[in-house]
Structures are given as C-alpha cells and as structure tokens.
C-alpha cells in the first residue's frame, strides 16, 4: 500500500502538531501539492489527546524509549483506588438510565472500571483554551474550518483566595451580583477596567505612559484597588504574578475583557473531546484540498540535492523511498538536530499533571467547566493554571472529572504541583468522607519547552515549535502564519473554504482543487 505513495511534492509536512497542521492546511488551501506525514499512528504529536488505553501506551512508550525522554520526562503515574471493585455488582457496568431523579450515591470506582470505559476518556497532553475573540477563533471562522469542530464555554473562572476557592466575577452582571466586592470597590474596578480596554499599544495614551518599567501590581495599587480586587485582576484575569510588568498585565487583561460576551459567561472556549481535535480539523481541510495523509511513516534522513538549473530540493528517506519537495515543514521533535540552527536558547521547561477525580473542585448546579488560576503559594513558586473538564466535554465517563495542572517548571512536576493539588483534592486514597473530590488517578510529567522559534541551516526546511506553557493557541497560530508566508509569499493565509453546497464537481478537472460557485446548473454531464 505504501508503495503507492507519490514521491514528489511542493510541500512535505512531517508531524501533525498544531503548527504543522495549520501550515499544511494553509499550503494545500491555496493549491500547493502537500504530503503530510506522522511517525506515529495518531494525529497531534505532543498536542494529541488519548483515550485511557492510548495514554497507557504513551506512558509505556516514554518509559521504554530513551529518545522520548528528551521531550517528556519525570513521568509518574499513580492510582488511588483498588484494582477491582470490592463487590462487582454495580461496578463496571454502564448504567444507561442515568437521569434518575434522586442523586445517586457516588460510585466507587476501581481501576478495572477505567479499563472497561477507556474509550470514554479523552485526555490531552496539551490542554489549552481559546479566547472567544482570540486569533484561533477568528481563524477557524474566517477559514471555515470551524465547521469541523464543536466547543463548550468555560462556565467559570476561579481563584484561590484566603485559603479557599472563589469564583471570579467575569461579566458586568457577575460584578454587580457578587457579594464579595463592595459597591465602592465595584465602581473603582469598573473605572480601572475601562482604562484598560482603552489601552492601545500604538498610541500610548497618558494612562499608561509612565508605567513602562513598573509592575502591574503597582499599577493596581496606584488605582486604589483593595487587596481582594488586586488579587482578582492580577492573578485570575491577567494570570500574572507579583512581578508581572504593568503593560503585560494590561495587555492580558484587555485580551480577557475583549473576549467576554461572545459565547458565554467567560471569555474562554474548550474544544469538545479536547485540544487534540484541533490539529485534525486543519488536517481535514488540507486533505479536502488534495493533501495526502500518511500516518505511521517514519523518516530516516533529511538531505538536499541539486537538480537542473541549480535548483535545490529537500529529500527525505523514508521506508526505502526518497521523497522530494521544495519545502519541508517539520516539527522540532522530528527534525534531525544537525538541521537546527542555532541551538534554541535554554528555556524553562513545563511541569504538568493530570488528575481524574470523582467530583468537581467546587459544587455547581450544572456541570461546570472551570479555569482556576492558582496564585503562587510560596514566594518563589510559579502561578499554576488548572483546567477542570467533565463528561459533557467528551473527556471522561459520567461521574468523573479530568483536571489539568500546568506551570513553569522549578524542580520537577510532582514537587511543583502536588502542594497545589492537595489544596483542592483528597489525595489520601482512603474511603474517609471529605468535602473535597477524591483523586482517583494522577499523572505528573515534565515537558521540554520547545516553543521558542528556531530556524534551520538548510534552505527550504522550516522548523515548527512545540507546545508552550501558555493558556491559549495564539503563539502556534502566529508561528504557522509566519512559516506559511515564507513558503508562499504574497498568498492569502487560509482564505475562506467554500461550503459544500457552493462546490461544483466537474467532470474534467484533473488538477488542483479549483472551486467555483455553483452558478451554472446545466453544464454538460455524461
């Protein structure tokens, strides 16, 4: 079957991470002949989502392959529940009539229940949110790729204040309704937020011109905000810390505020079935426009050769076949080291954790989807971002929640994140009653931060960064557009793809996906 694989392409993309997939879609969309490969049998690379079985395989793979160790390390998986349910009578079996009136007693989960329902899990290696008016949402809409995806709104933003979880008022209605803030505070807050929305990078207005080298915290204090309000704005809305520069804080706040009111009560969207769905949406568009897809395709060597007229093509050895292209777009983890120049600057790696729990971190009438921003618990700690997603997102079976922790690494993932997890979960593994949800399973790991842009020593080779520690996809979108502009200067980046009903299937189109508006119904047909 593989022998059918054509060998000459304008663009070959290796790796199906977010950046690679966007570039593949953009090149194919404007008519480039694209081959898109992945070494593994699934889409997404480090951006993938796994079901529980797939995740187990991933863990095994990392632990057994020293090369994987370079990207993902300090992997530590732990169970807090028994292998089998004590009585098998209501464990394991999928209860189909769940919408019973009375609140059912909490199910006692066992490891074998997870195994039995492994397909209902979609666990993200790179969980991220979309700002409702952020670049990815705008791109999905303008390119019409949005039709391949569905989303849910984040229902609430939480923070950790005075040793407990607190909802952060997001919308105007929230602010007025909340009792945590006095009327005077509300007025001050509104005034300050108004000036932030008025902030414009190009024309530094008076409000911020003297704040260039000061912290955001100082600015908030200067505006007379009370400690509680400063906490909300600095940690929960701007996602910052005590040292956050003022203008960065202003920019983050503005981004948050500008995305309010589009889809729900918070500025954030979460993709159904997880972030790992999004690269696949871009891949589908690439395929629809003629891109060729081949998973499970290892590459052995990347080189160049000079053909007639002194033109250089990039060559890839793969399964005893030589593939040729004008441009190779390759993920940093797939790219042979000797092609990368200069060595990417040492950056701070990422500490991550995934927890599966038997309830939400904070009770709620409807199933919540929460973003929690933990301020640093100790002075030298980093802020921790927490995302909690439930069954309605397609992430896990009913009765469970998947909770992601993300922070910059200081020591190792477990040391960095466990103290935070213990504040909101019962991690004792016992049967004792607790007001906190029980942690049933956890995974800690570190990921190398490969998000810094790198270039290649070989012309025609474009290296894509890996996932960053940020909350959104903005950097991936920005980088993909830059790479596309290098490959296809002057071309439009992902112009709107036509809807299916606008497409005419022609008898005699032999090349390229040239779409036409359906204006001519009586064209000759055989």
């Amino acid at each position, binding site marked *: 079957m593989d022998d059918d694989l054509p060998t000459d392409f304008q663009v070959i993309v290796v790796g199906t991470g977010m950046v690679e997939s966007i570039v593949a879609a953009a090149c194919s969309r404007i008519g480039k002949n694209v081959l898109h490969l992945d070494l593994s049998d699934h889409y997404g690379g480090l951006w993938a989502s796994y079901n529980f079985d797939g995740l187990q395989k991933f863990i095994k793979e990392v632990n057994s392959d020293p090369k994987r160790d370079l990207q993902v390390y300090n992997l530590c998986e732990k169970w807090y529940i028994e292998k089998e349910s004590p009585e098998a009578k209501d464990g394991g079996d999928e209860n189909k009539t769940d919408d019973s009136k009375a609140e059912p007693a909490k199910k006692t989960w066992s490891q074998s229940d997870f195994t039995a329902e492994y397909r209902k899990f979609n666990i993200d290696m790179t969980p991220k949110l979309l700002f409702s008016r952020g670049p990815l949402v705008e791109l999905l809409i*303008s390119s019409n790729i949005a039709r391949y995806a569905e989303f849910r709104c984040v229902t609430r933003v939480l923070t950790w204040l005075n040793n407990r979880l607190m909802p952060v008022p997001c919308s*105007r209605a929230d602010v007025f309704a909340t009792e945590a803030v006095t009327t005077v505070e509300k007025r001050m807050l509104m005034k300050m937020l108004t000036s932030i929305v008025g902030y414009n990078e190009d024309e530094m207005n008076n409000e911020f011109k003297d704040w260039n080298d000061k912290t955001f915290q100082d600015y908030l204090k200067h505006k007379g905000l009370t400690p509680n309000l400063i906490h909300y704005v600095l940690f929960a809305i701007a996602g910052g810390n005590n040292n956050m520069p003022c203008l960065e804080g202003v920019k983050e706040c503005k981004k948050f505020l*500008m995305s309010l009111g589009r889809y729900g009560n918070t500025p954030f969207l979460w993709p*159904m079935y997880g972030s790992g769905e999004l690269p696949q949406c871009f*891949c*589908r568009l690439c*395929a629809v426009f003629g891109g060729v897809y081949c998973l499970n395709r290892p590459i052995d060597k990347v080189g160049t050769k000079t053909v007639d007229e002194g033109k250089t093509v990039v060559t890839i050895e793969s399964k005893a076949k030589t593939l040729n292209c004008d441009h190779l777009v390759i993920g940093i983890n797939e790219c042979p080291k000797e092609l990368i120049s200069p060595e990417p600057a040492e950056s701070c790696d990422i500490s991550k954790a995934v927890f599966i729990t038997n309830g939400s971190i904070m009770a709620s009438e409807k199933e919540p989807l929460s973003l929690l921003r933990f301020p640093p618990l100790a002075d030298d700690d980093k802020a921790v971002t927490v995302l909690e997603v439930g069954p*309605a997102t397609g992430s896990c079976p009913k009765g469970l929640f998947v909770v992601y922790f993300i922070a910059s690494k200081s020591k190792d993932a477990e040391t960095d994140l466990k103290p935070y997890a213990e504040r909101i979960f019962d991690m004792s593994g016992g049967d004792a009653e607790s007001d906190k949800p029980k942690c049933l399973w956890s995974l800690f790991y570190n990921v190398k931060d490969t998000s810094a842009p790198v270039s290649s020593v070989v012309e025609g080779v474009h290296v894509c960064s890996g996932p960053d520690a940020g909350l959104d996809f903005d950097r991936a979108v920005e980088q993909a557009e830059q790479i596309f502009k290098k490959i296809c200067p002057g071309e439009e980046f992902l112009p709107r793809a036509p809807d299916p009903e606008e*497409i005419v299937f022609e008898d005699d*189109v032999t090349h390229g996906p040239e779409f036409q508006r359906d204006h001519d119904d009586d064209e000759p047909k055989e």
Partner: protein
Amino acid sequence: MSSRKKVLLKVIILGDSGVGKTSLMNQFVNKKFSNQYKATIGADFLTKEVIVDDRIVTMQIWDTAGQERFQSLGVAFYRGADCCVLVFDVTAPNTFKSLESWRDEFLIQASPRDPDNFPFVILGNKVDLDNRAVSAKRAQQWCQSKNDIPYFETSAKEAVNVELAFQTIARNALAQETEAELYNEFPDQIKLNANDNGRNRDGDNCAC
C-alpha cells in the same frame, strides 16, 4: 423530545479507495456522476434534506477526503456518527474483504454507545460493470452474519438503488439518533460562525 426540532444526522462513508464513495454521495445529493477516476479532492461533506416518516431530516454525509488511502483517518472524523455506510466495489474482491476491517475500525474509533446495534449499511457499488467478482449472495451472507446489516447493490453511475439506500440510511440513523437523544449527554455545544460576532451586543460585551 419534540419532533419539530430540526434533526441533523451525521453519516460517514467508509471503504477502500476507488470504490465510489464520493460518486455515491454526489449522485444522491447532486444527481451527478463523473466517470473520471481521481482520488477524492474537494469532497468534504454534502448535506441533503430528506423526509423520513413525515419528519424532515438533514443528512450530513461525510466523505473521507482521501485520508483513508494510507489508513490515516483520525479519530475526529468518526466522532458523533449516527450511521456508517460501508462501500465496496463488486468488481474488486479485495474491497469486499476490507469491509470487516473498516467495520472494526469504525467501532474502535467511533466507540458508539451500543456497538452491537449501531446502524451500518453496506453498499455493493458498480453493479453496472460487466466484470462482477463478488456475488450478491456472498455479500448478503456476510451482512447477515454481522447482525443483519442492510445490503444494497448500487450503481452511482446509473443511479441504481442510490435513493433507496440513502433512505434506509436516513431511517436507521434517525432511529439511532432518537435513542441517543434520550440521554441528551452533550447539550449546548457551540458551533462557531461569523454571525456570532454581533451577538449580545447590548449585553456584557465587557465588564466596563
């Protein structure tokens, strides 16, 4: 569940490359056929309204976009399917043999709630050609052995049985959908579109 609610059915078509998946869709929706074989380009999904038992149903039929050629369909393609159409070419026995693995692949990737009763429909396509190599009997036997999957012999070229087959697909998908609605597991999903831009303009655009 009110029957007046608009029903959207996701139907996916699977089968080896070249069996006529895109042509079948195109014949059903656009009443057009192209004889020239080319790997699927530009085929995404087609939408058609049909009436099933006095209910208006919108069928959204998803093509593989050629990603099946090197076994590279991702799990996202399979999500939320209400019916799966498996196509083989009656002149190419290998494409018939592949049905089993396509069915398995679907059940693994889509992980439907009730795999034993998930609606599949099998289409033996290209019956207009002379060099037939898979007999109707053989195909029917296989379908019976798989929990009685409905089987149709079609010609996308001559529009044989295409309408009938898709009616059955819609009906069976609808039966599946109605069952699924009882659980109502995932209400309130959001589809992004440009029209949302102006939504809630006088609401909470920002907190100021």
